[in-house]
């Protein structure tokens, strides 16, 4: 599991293993100032990064 959040310190405090910083806390995987097609491209890149974090072999918690 990877948690995408803007409150990485809170996620770390409660013991989450994989943490990734999101965009804004009230839209963690959004970029509303971009035109829709670009926002989707941006989001695909963000989720690709999240998938890469899932592929990383971890022993200890990490913030990506």
């Amino acid at each position, binding site marked *: 599991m990877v948690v995408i959040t803007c409150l990485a310190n809170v996620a770390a405090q409660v013991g989450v*293993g994989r943490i990734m910083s999101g965009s804004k806390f009230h839209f963690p995987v959004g970029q*509303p100032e971009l035109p829709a097609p670009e926002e989707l491209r941006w989001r695909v890149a963000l989720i690709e990064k999240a998938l890469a974090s899932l592929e990383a072999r971890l022993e200890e918690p990490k913030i990506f």
Partner: protein
Amino acid sequence: MIKVLHYLNQFFAGIGGEEKAGQEVLFLSQPVGIGSVLENAFKAHGVAYATIACGDNYFHEAEENALRAIGAAIDQFRPDIFLAGPAFNAGRYGIACAKVCSWVRDNWRIPAITAMHEDNPGTREIGRHVFVLQTGASAASMQDVLRRYSLLVERLIAQDQKAIEDFRAEYCLAIPRRFTIRTDKPDYVRAADLLLARLSGQSYESEIPRIETQAHTVPNLTVSLAEATVALVTEGGLVPKGNPDRLESSRGSRYFKYSVHGRSDLKHGEFEAMHTGYDTSTVDRDPDRLVPLDAMRVLESGQRIKKVHDQYFVTTGTGAMPSKMAELGAGIAAEIAGAGIDAVILTAT
């Protein structure tokens, strides 16, 4: 000689079941039911034991009258210790026990002890200084609970403050509530004192208790992503428009799963966020900004992952008790483990 007054509902007072829930406040100058067990436990001290019986419905429908009658009984009997319950997971009884104990403690300054399960809604009504013994969800834990009442009463009689606080830490529910207390120094002075103590290497104790968390092992993928089913989870409160299951907008007590089968993205007007912890308008305009189904579909069709799970999981994380969230998380995790899901992307607001 100590005087104990024990509040029981109509059922535990042996008056009757639901059909007697309208019973008015009754003062009985002897122990009743489980009170007899406790009276026996205190015998060595010499004890006068009396009982207040009150119907669960009566208390809620006529709270003011009920409290007035209970107050009259207290003024007449003058107890040293007030007991109520145990209420286990009975909601009306738990709320009554919590309110009566808080009211008695505040007005007569005598120790007040009740007992209930941590999920009992009565825990929200507990006032400062009331002891709330932790119980199981049902009366199956009665024997242990009665032992704990008597253990605590023994310590109160002995006035052993350390033993009382040790007992509280071990057997009482920690009720995380805000209380108004008066202090000699304003908060900015206390905060500066804490900082100075820390900087100068002196010992200090924060006024805000830390939430202790367990260390978890970090799970790694057991299949390649190209073979993986990935589920989306959020605490951001995203539900189908109209919130058909009435997910709470704060203090979520349940989680739900909603189908994304056949959808390429989550459309404005079809889903909305129920969450008082953030401004939901940006998510409402495009719910993929919270639950990124559109991006997942792109990666699915590009065969970066095998499949997006057909449902996303959701609860509301704001204002919630960590213990409740841990329980919901365990429920979601169990479903995920049973559904052949290999990985999860969880978005948190």
